[in-house]
């Protein structure tokens, strides 16, 4: 039985920048398909069908970034960690979990995303905690994504929470 998931390496990693991804230029068709999917089966608002701007929840990194760079020293794995951070390169223990779930998101928005925008996502480690639950001891992970556009304007800052057990 696991007594704790948290060691000094995990705790002290808070705030460590992990990666920088740059998106392909946002395309109108991607905005349109996103809107269709999230409004399905009702029609999506016209403003998205003609891609005047993207829904705030739109992800231009779906189906891969245009470029990805690890910011962790010595990480030359070349693996793109889209939804998280490279825990192995951070020196975290090699935990084995039965399940990894989305625990929630907390997001602060800046400017809207438009067709042609190129978004940069810098991910860093948030605060890792643990708590007992009905599935035993659960590791609560946090990663922080900061998105800016090509004009270096803040698009959004998101705290992503994961639950692993």
């Amino acid at each position, binding site marked *: 039985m696991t007594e704790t998931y948290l060691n000094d390496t995990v705790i002290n990693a808070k705030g460590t920048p992990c990666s920088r991804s740059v998106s392909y230029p946002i395309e109108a068709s*991607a905005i349109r*398909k*996103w809107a*269709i*999917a*999230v*409004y*399905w*089966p*009702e029609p999506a*608002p016209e*403003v998205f069908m003609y891609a005047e701007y993207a*829904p*705030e*929840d739109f*992800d231009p990194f*779906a*189906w*891969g970034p245009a470029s990805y760079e690890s910011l962790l020293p010595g990480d030359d794995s070349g693996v793109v960690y*889209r939804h998280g951070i490279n825990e192995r390169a951070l020196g975290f223990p090699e935990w084995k979990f*039965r*399940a990894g*779930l*989305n*625990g*929630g*998101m*907390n*997001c*602060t*928005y800046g400017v809207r995303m438009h067709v042609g925008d190129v978004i940069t996502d810098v991910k860093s480690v948030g605060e890792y905690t643990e708590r007992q639950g009905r*599935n035993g001891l659960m590791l609560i992970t946090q990663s922080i994504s900061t998105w800016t556009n090509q004009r270096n304007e803040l698009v959004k800052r998101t705290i992503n*929470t994961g639950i692993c057990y």
Partner: protein
Amino acid sequence: MNSSSAPSTPASAISRVQVGEQLPPFTRRTDFDNWNRYAAVNDEFLPHCMNDEAARSEGFPKAFGMGNLQWSYVHSLLRAFIGPDGAILRVDLQFRNPNLRSQVLTANGTVTAIAGDVLSVELWTQEDKGSRLALGTAVVRI
């Protein structure tokens, strides 16, 4: 059963927003049809969202939907309320219970504070029997 939220709130109605006001809900019956379409655009092909057996191996009774789609649904709820000239400033959402197959999911919001043209909103999603699936808050400008 599906209903989008009401058409965008016109400016004249916005001036009458009050604390306690309920946002027009956003409802979708959820199953593989929506989840796989969302998976398509978000490249989120998770076994427990596609396959009952995979979900059961993780302790769930059947396949369940991705939290990111509920995230999108609450954004759709807010967008319809604030209108095209409004802005979503902040959203916070925690996923507490899984969105299981065939549930009718409704995103709801209640205005909790008004400061000039900035509203605070309590958010939640619930399934057809009323159990809350995700809880959170938002701050929007109208």
